[in-house]
């Protein structure tokens, strides 16, 4: 049991740090939830790709470095510590790509991944529907068989990034007569510019169009864009859901960086006598370090053949609540300037605390609400009996 990096891992970390030091923009990019910011972030993805940093764990042939999970953790630590831009390709890289590696055809992998790595195709997710949030088995949007493919009809919502993205992936009901509600679904990729797609951006709490509503009116999807077997979408999606809740959605590096910045803010602005705030800053540091060490242990287990399983639910609850507490602490530290929205000219740190707080508030909702996650923890990790909830 140790915490020492081997020489090659250390070299990888140094290479990451050096590259980022000379490439991360001096001024933060505009918010990626705006048209201008989206474009700037897409440009940044291209630059990352140029250094082969956009998807370090992928095989080299698709633009990656074949990096181990440990190195991915190190990359993320360095990335966020360097205050590099948010990842507009996140949905594709952390949700769709693992699904394609697991269930996609060789042709799909070869066709979809390289433009994703280059930031050329930005992906949105299309899971939720107005009547199906936590209860994904209640999906009603349909995929109807047609010549050489499927016609999508229905209504998706809360589609992250869809206001500006190029393509989307999601689940559709293809076999309405199936015996159970989560049977008979198909996992599909489709073009957001295709005929029949209407994208209506939806503003998040601070008004930025972080997601969109999709109306689908006989949108044609060729067979080549079905992932896995038609009707088996639920099983295909579950592997993605596992990833979503696990490490790859919000790496420890995000939180070690944020906690470090919070500590710096405290050192710079706090009244040393204010132990109430000190305790909250200390708790953010403790939480970030706990998640970091927990991820090191998790990576070691995965490397030796373990699976994340319901442990991903623990992680998701933990980081989402840490993120809110950390940002609330920052806003309280900032005093009167803590009330300013990120768009305010005088917002501290380019508005990153205000923006981070709004972003954090969604954490307990998306990727499976924390209520559902706690049910999963209790039932799968503690073995408590399933209730009606």
């Amino acid at each position, binding site marked *: 049991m140790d915490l020492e990096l081997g020489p090659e891992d250390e070299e990888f970390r140094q290479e990451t740090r050096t590259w980022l030091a000379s490439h991360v923009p001096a001024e933060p990019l505009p918010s990626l939830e705006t048209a201008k910011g989206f474009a700037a972030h897409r440009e940044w993805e291209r630059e990352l790709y140029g250094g082969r940093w956009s998807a370090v764990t992928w095989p080299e042939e698709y633009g990656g470095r074949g990096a181990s999970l440990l190195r991915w953790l190190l990359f993320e630590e360095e990335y966020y510590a360097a205050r590099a831009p948010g990842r507009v390709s996140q949905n594709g890289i952390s949700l769709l790509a693992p699904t394609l590696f697991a269930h996609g055809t060789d042709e799909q992998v070869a066709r979809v991944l390289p433009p994703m790595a280059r930031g050329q195709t930005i992906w949105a997710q299309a899971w939720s529907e107005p009547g199906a949030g936590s209860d994904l088995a209640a999906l009603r949007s349909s995929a109807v068989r047609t010549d050489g493919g499927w016609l999508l009809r229905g209504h998706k919502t809360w589609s992250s990034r869809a206001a500006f993205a190029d393509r989307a992936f999601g689940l559709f009901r293809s076999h309405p007569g199936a015996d159970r509600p989560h049977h008979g679904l198909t996992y599909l990729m489709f073009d957001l510019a295709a005929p029949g797609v209407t994208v209506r951006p939806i503003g998040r709490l601070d008004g930025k169009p972080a997601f969109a509503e999709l109306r689908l009116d006989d949108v044609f999807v060729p067979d080549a864009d079905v992932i896995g077997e038609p009707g088996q979408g639920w099983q295909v999606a579950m592997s993605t859901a596992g990833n979503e809740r696990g490490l790859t959605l919000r790496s420890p590096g995000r939180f070690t960086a944020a906690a470090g910045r919070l500590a710096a803010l405290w050192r710079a602005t706090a009244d040393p006598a204010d132990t109430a705030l000190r305790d909250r800053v200390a708790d953010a540091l403790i939480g970030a370090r706990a998640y970091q060490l927990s991820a090191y242990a998790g990576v070691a287990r995965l490397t030796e053949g373990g699976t994340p399983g319901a442990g991903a639910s623990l992680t998701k609850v933990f980081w989402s609540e840490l993120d809110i507490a950390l940002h609330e602490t920052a806003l309280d530290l900032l005093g009167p300037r803590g009330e300013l*929205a990120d768009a305010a000219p005088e917002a501290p740190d380019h508005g990153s605390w205000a923006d981070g707080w709004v972003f954090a*508030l969604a954490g307990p909702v998306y990727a499976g609400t924390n209520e559902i996650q706690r049910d999963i923890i209790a039932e799968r990790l503690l073995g408590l009996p399933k209730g009606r909830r």
Partner: protein
Amino acid sequence: MRFLLDAEQAEFGRTLGRMLAAADTPAAVRAWGAGDSGPGRAAWRRLAGAGVFGLAVPEKHEGAGLLPIELVVSFVELGRHAVPGPLAETVAAAVLLDRLGDADGLADTWLPAIAAGDAMVSYADLSRGPYALDAATADVTLLVDGDTLRASGGNGPVQPSVDPVRRLTRCAAGAVLASGPAVRAAAAQAADTARLLTAAQALGVGRRLLDDTVAYVKQRTQFGVAIGSFQAVKHRLADVLLALELAEPLVYGAAVELAGASQAGVAGSADATGVGIAMAKVAAGEAAYTAARAALQLHGALGYTDELDLSLWIRKARALRGAWGTPAECRARILPGPASAGAQIFHE
């Protein structure tokens, strides 16, 4: 002792509530945030017509006298309906001007206008922070800096708050209107009043968030049942109700104390009144924020959208928690320090 609203006070609150419910305040809020104060001004005038601003103005200046309980009743409704504008600030300015007296004609000029709803006053105490609320929209902006009262000498760019209807502005120092220790003393009383009314607003915000969330969880179904039947949802909302129900008597209790102190004109009780107000602010501010977090979580992604009017109250809850006294400042007012005697709140 009868620590309950009189029938008249309760009816006044209900009347205001009905009036505001009919006034489409969400549309006024959105317009205000976008820089169009017209619909908000209209609501403001209706409130003045109902007598709300007169509650902050003495009779000799054409008001109803300073009536803290009725003001609290009003501000709970203003919070419940998310009325925009420098509401607590206008009342605080009235308190300040009244306390300063008529020497410079300030009170004669402004108090009747405030009572009539013709004067929307932005007011900032610069010891508390550099920003004045809605200064760009107000008819006048008053700034206190230590023992000097000035008019604003010009507004900087709008600095939007996390609650976008709160348009904060840094103001340049303008003409000196008054100075001396009386300004400092009057500003302290104005700040206490603003703090109490902000607590009342927060209480109304929290009530609204709870009501709307309860209604939502009764009709939203997942897994074949209303989500309001899940124990986790029930317990979370029970905790919100608990926080609001226990904040409410603190808010009214502080109003009763302030009413007593105002009538008696007793400076000696200011400390105890200030403690009661600080308690009310902590409890109401935290209860409203707790309600906002629960509302957001239980509405799911819907609660996170700007489109749903719920967001007006979620954002306001956060802003009001800090306005006119953060929880930390208020707790420091309750227990200033072991060395100081401070106010003994209960027998020690």
